[in-house]
């Protein structure tokens, strides 16, 4: 039995309104770090608010340790939450903030003090216990929110974009720290974000959501390298995957994907799956790092087309080349050709057949 189970979870705000969360099914094991990833409005925040009890559920079930928690008040669900705005109470000192949940449990004073200090130490704010939130930086307030969340020893940690109000540098260090605390406290966490690098670096498993539907559940590597749908392929990765509408044609030496700008021979491993699509249109997706650049003309099987580099965006470790293939803007990530100048004529090829095909109607991966 999984630790947390969402069964056909549904949410609509008005009676006949749109489903914000549509038949969501998910099971989470104890100790897992799950990240809900998706664009804004995809229902990820709504989902954790339903788990926390702040939002009513329109249909389905939520089980924690096999027990249905629907209808329970938020305080009786054994969850704790870190909010986007931190939600640190400004009229209480840090100590009072952290002690608030314990005081409500009517614990003895000595125990409250001990646990608050332990939590403060875990999140490194022992020196700030007497301060008011207004006298602290965003990062420190974040730590207070974390301390308050861990002090109640929750069954489940919910984090609603907790890092999005921090500056870029702090965000990176805080996320390491959050992961640290998660490991140390041996807790089960759900983390909501729209930032894929955050999701990739934190998650044991990522739940990619779009328009209230789970697009894919998988480890960071799975979602990136083995995207299940066109949405996942386009949402994950910076720069995003390049997509071309291609027509599958059968020729003597195999299947070919024909686009306006290029022809590409389908790798052998994908031939069986793509055969039914012969003479039909599909989406071809290729990640920027899998488009190869060569200054000499190549005529290998992987060859795509000749093209002119329009812009170069140097990134230090790599450079992004922007070009145009058959009217589609294409981004290429390169390490070997960082010195390339705009307006250079290059030859493009597909590296190692790292290409994905997607059904145009269902947007599902063809493999």
């Amino acid at each position, binding site marked *: 039995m999984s630790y947390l189970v969402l069964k056909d979870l549904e949410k609509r705000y008005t009676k006949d309104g749109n489903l914000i969360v549509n038949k969501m099914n998910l099971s989470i094991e104890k100790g897992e770090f799950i990240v809900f990833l998706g664009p804004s409005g995809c229902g990820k925040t709504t989902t954790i608010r339903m788990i926390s*009890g702040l939002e009513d559920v329109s249909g389905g079930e939520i089980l924690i340790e096999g027990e249905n928690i629907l209808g329970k008040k938020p305080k009786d669900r054994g969850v*704790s939450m870190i909010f986007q*705005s931190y939600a640190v109470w*400004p009229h209480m000192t840090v100590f009072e903030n952290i002690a608030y*949940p314990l005081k*409500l449990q009517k614990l003895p004073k000595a125990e409250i003090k001990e646990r608050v200090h332990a939590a403060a130490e875990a999140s490194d704010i022992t020196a700030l216990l007497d301060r008011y939130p207004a*006298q602290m930086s965003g990062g420190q307030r974040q730590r207070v929110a974390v301390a308050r969340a861990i002090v*109640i020893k929750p069954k489940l940690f919910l984090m609603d974009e907790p890092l999005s109000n921090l500056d870029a540098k702090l965000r990176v260090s805080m996320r390491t720290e959050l992961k640290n605390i998660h490991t140390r406290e041996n807790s089960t966490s759900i983390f909501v974000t729209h930032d894929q690098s955050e999701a990739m670096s934190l998650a044991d498993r990522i739940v990619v959501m779009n328009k209230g539907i789970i697009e894919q559940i998988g480890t960071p590597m799975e979602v990136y390298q083995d995207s299940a749908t066109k949405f996942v392929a386009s949402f994950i990765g910076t720069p995003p995957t390049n997509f071309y509408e291609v027509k599958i044609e059968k020729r003597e030496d195999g299947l070919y994907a024909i686009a306006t700008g290029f022809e590409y021979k389908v790798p052998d491993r994908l031939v069986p799956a793509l055969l039914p699509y012969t003479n039909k249109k599909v989406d071809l997706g290729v990640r920027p790092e899998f488009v190869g650049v060569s200054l000499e003309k190549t005529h290998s099987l992987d060859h795509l087309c000749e093209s002119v580099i329009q812009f170069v965006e140097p990134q230090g470790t790599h450079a992004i080349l922007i070009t145009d293939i058959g009217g589609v803007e294409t981004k290429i990530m390169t390490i070997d050709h960082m010195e390339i100048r705009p307006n250079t004529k290059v030859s493009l090829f597909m590296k190692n057949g790292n290409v994905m095909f997607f059904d145009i109607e269902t947007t599902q991966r063809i493999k």
Partner: protein
Amino acid sequence: MNRLNLIQKTVMSLILSAMVITVVVPIIFFLSVSFSNDFEMNQFPKNLIPSTSVTVKVAPTEQGLYEIFYNNGEGYRSIITTANPIKLETFFNRQFAVTIPGEQLVEQFSKTKENGPMEFKLKKDMFYNFKQFFTIATKAKSALVNSILVSIYTIIISLTIGSLAGYAMARYNFKFKETINVTLLIVRMFPVVGISIPMAILLINFGLFDTLLGLAILYSIPNIALTAWITSSIFVGINKELEEASFIFGANSFHTFMKITLPLAFPALAASSMYAFLTAWNDTISALILTNQNQTLALVVYKAIGTSSSSIQYAAAGSLILIIPALVFTFIVRKYVNQMWGGVEV
């Protein structure tokens, strides 16, 4: 902030000084008047700072009486000739605000029989006018209590109803929300006097005429609207997540409201309570219409000013009694109104 140029500065200071003059000058005048005795009142030009003692010249007459001379700025003048202790006491009391028993005065003055005319410096009772105000306006004492009670009732009524309405407007969506929002302001558009007559009839029917509660209800009507407006804007500004965090961490709705929402809205409540207090404390017209026996202090002072044309210093003393609690309350509350959470060391 941009620095103001010379012309802007001048205009600003002129406006400010005009405001200060219109507010401060009457207060200073009344302050001065309320500590002056009858003679000082009739002096011209009047001294701004009232004296703390009275100097009189006493000369014995051949009949064994004392002739008392007083210098009101134009040289000594004979003002009374008597040896009757009661007469002396009343005279010094009324005219000089000197509260020394008649026998003592006679005893002091008797020295002149041996030494000839002498000057006497008699200590003035600085709070004579205030005491006198309570003696003249017999209802002043109970009116002061009434005023305090009515103010408290008004604050309680308008804050409970008004802040709940403000919370509802800030947090919930309901039909006609905008209309209700505007309607609340319309309530404030009516001068209280305008609704006093129908109110009087209503209160009579409810048996609340000439009661403090009835008065408080009348004062609360415009203040509920104002409180709702002030608090709703503050409640909107309170991040909903602060309340949600409280729910998550173990509180129920009531506890959350009391421990999280209310303290955060405290500046708004303080401001509203100030308005409620001032409405109740300062009103005379409605009190005039709606009360008979249970008058408020403002009304009593108003009547005192209207009737005691001869001795305006008593009315001035009454006015000060009226002003001081309002000032004190406003200054206490001001601290909270200005308070920014955490920024101010508590």
